[in-house]
């Protein structure tokens, strides 16, 4: 049985990891620390801010991380073209995570064709909303008016996405959504905000992994919290 993956998400701004109240750290130093804490992979999430923006800087720090980190690396960044994705993969990212807007363009299909579906994931934000027919509520997709979350994920699967990183708004229980998403023929990883209850619920209902903010609990903490639930975890 595959292990449920426990994956910290580390924010990177201007090539550095922002640290509240202290000097920013280097992504490679942080990555090694997270790996030693038991991470099964790391998502690097590029956010606005910091000093030097740009593609050259990104490949610079990614190459440094990849040369010193011996677990899988994913990059979530506002890449806008195939060349940018290729640079990130060549520098050492094992996969790139596209946002919903980019996935809706021909970029997803072209990226899958060029790099293979192992290396292309899509981030999806599911939000609860009233069903159009008044029959209660349904899961919609933030940023995609009219789209229903499960149908959109099925479409992403058809388009060739290798994995979905799914954030679920906290106002409704996510278990049922993950139970249905688990029937898709691709991995679905739950992106949580650090709250253990929905994290455990998602994993118990079929999520293949847990992505959580790196600045909170450690991977070892999460594994200690989750292992009593009988989940397969890499120790």
């Amino acid at each position, binding site marked *: 049985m595959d*292990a449920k993956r426990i994956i910290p998400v580390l924010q990177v701004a201007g090539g550095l990891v922002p640290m509240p109240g202290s000097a920013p750290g280097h992504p490679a130093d942080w*990555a090694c620390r997270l790996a030693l804490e038991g991470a*099964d992979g790391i998502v690097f999430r590029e956010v606005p801010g910091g000093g030097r923006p740009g593609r050259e800087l990104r490949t610079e720090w990614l190459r440094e991380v*990849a040369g010193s980190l*011996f677990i*899988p690396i994913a990059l979530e960044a506002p890449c806008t073209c195939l060349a940018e994705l290729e640079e990130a993969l060549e520098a050492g990212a094992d996969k790139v995570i596209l946002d919903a807007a980019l996935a809706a363009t021909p970029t997803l299909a072209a990226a899958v064709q060029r790099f293979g579906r*192992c*290396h292309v994931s899509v981030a999806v934000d599911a939000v609860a909303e009233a069903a159009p027919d008044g029959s209660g509520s349904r899961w919609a997709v933030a940023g995609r008016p009219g789209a229903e979350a499960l149908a959109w994920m099925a479409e992403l699967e058809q388009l060739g996405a290798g*994995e979905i990183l799914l954030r679920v708004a906290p106002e409704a229980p996510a278990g049922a959504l993950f139970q249905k998403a688990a029937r898709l023929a*691709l991995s679905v990883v739950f992106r949580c905000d650090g709250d253990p209850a929905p994290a455990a619920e998602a994993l118990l209902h079929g999520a293949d992994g847990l992505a959580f903010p790196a600045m909170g609990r450690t991977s070892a903490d999460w594994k200690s919290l989750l292992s009593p639930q009988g989940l397969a975890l890499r120790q």
Partner: protein
Amino acid sequence: MITFIQYGGASLSTLEGAMRRMGFEHCRAGTPDQAAPEGPIVLVGAGPLDPACAALKASGWWRELPQLAADGRPVLGINLGLHILAEGSEESPRGAGLGLIPGIVRRLGPRVKVPHWGWSPVRQLRDHPLLPEIRGGWLFFAHCHALEPGSETLSIAVHGRPFSVMECRGRTVGVQAHLEKSGCFGLALLEKTLGVLGEKPRSAPAADCN
């Protein structure tokens, strides 16, 4: 010295980092004439099969690698590299592989999630005199296709059905897992595998590992 075939088929950043950490000398070779005069030749691959094969053909490696293996040069294929060393793949039914490792690569599934992207426990099928016991170890995989277990299979993992993790025929070794992405356990197995292929670290390895 270890030669990494450089053909655009995969990033070499982490493998080269692993070599530095473990103290192995290494170089990149875009064409066979750039290879080190001796030592293992490593073919690592990721992504679609056809463009990788085309790039190897264009650079001369496709023709030269079987000849080097026949002359006794050790060869290591990792992930897609293993698929290329095999006899063929369902991913490209009309093209043959290099045939250095027996067997056909087949698509994973049905009724499992594809790609298989994650950590799986590995089971040893038969011992190798120089490789460590890997029973119970976890390795990282990222693939949609895998080699069926066969006569040269040393270890397997299961994703819906058993598939080959490590193959060894003479001085040619193929590994489905990304050993360089499988933490301390993967690096230890990579070091032992390079040892089987006759390569020894030239400097002391770094103490810590992640």
